C-alpha cells in the first residue's frame, strides 16, 4: 500500500509538475524567437517614424501614424511579450512590472538609432540623437 502511494505521488508529480517547469523555459525561448522574428518589421516602422519607444518600455504608435491592422497586431504582440518578460524579471527580483519596464526603456533609449522616436522620462517625445551626441550628453550630465 505504501509503495502504491509513493508511486502514485511520483506519477502525479511527473504529470503535473515537470511540464510546468519545462513550459516556463519554453515560454521564454518562444518569446525570444517571436521577438527576433518581429524585429525587422519593428525597425522599419521605427525608421518610418510610425512608432516609437515609450518611457514604460513598450512600443507606441505615433500621432497621425497610419498603421495597417497587421502592424497594430504586431505592436500588440510585441508589447504583450515584453510585459511577460518584465513580469518574470519583476517576480524574480522582487520589483514591479512598471519599474522593470522603466529600466528597460532607459536601455532602449541609450541604444536607439538616430531619428527614432523615444519618450524621455519627462514624457516628451524626441528623436534619438546621433550616438556621438549621446556620449556628449552623458559627459555634460
Amino acid at each position, binding site marked *: 500500500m505504501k509503495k502504491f502511494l509513493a508511486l502514485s505521488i511520483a506519477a502525479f508529480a511527473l504529470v503535473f509538475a515537470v511540464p510546468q517547469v519545462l513550459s516556463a523555459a519554453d515560454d521564454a525561448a518562444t518569446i525570444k524567437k517571436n521577438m*527576433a522574428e518581429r524585429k525587422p518589421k519593428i525597425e522599419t516602422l521605427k525608421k518610418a517614424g510610425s512608432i516609437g519607444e515609450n518611457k514604460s518600455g513598450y512600443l507606441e504608435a505615433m500621432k497621425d501614424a497610419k498603421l495597417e491592422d497587421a502592424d497594430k497586431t504586431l505592436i500588440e504582440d510585441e508589447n504583450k511579450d515584453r510585459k511577460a518578460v518584465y513580469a518574470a524579471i519583476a517576480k524574480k527580483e522582487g520589483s514591479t512590472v512598471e519599474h522593470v519596464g522603466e529600466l528597460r526603456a532607459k536601455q532602449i533609449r541609450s541604444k536607439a538609432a538616430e531619428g527614432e522616436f523615444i519618450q524621455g522620462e519627462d514624457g516628451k517625445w524626441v528623436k534619438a540623437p546621433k550616438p556621438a551626441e549621446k556620449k556628449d550628453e552623458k559627459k555634460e550630465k
Partner: protein
Amino acid sequence: MKKFLPIIAAAAVLLGFGATACIRTQSEVDVKPIEIKPVHITLDINIKIEKALDDFFGDLDAL
C-alpha cells in the same frame, strides 16, 4: 600623638571608603543598530534588474 596614630589611620581609611562610595562612575556604550539605507537596496535591485534585462535582450539588441 602616637596614641592617636591608629585612630587617624582608621579615620583616613574610612574617609577613603567614603570617598570611593561617593565617587560614582558611569559609562554608557551606545550600540547603534546597523542600518541599511533604502537607497542602497534600491540600487542593488536596479543593478540586478538591468543585468536580467541584458541577459534576456542582449542577443536581440545585437541583431
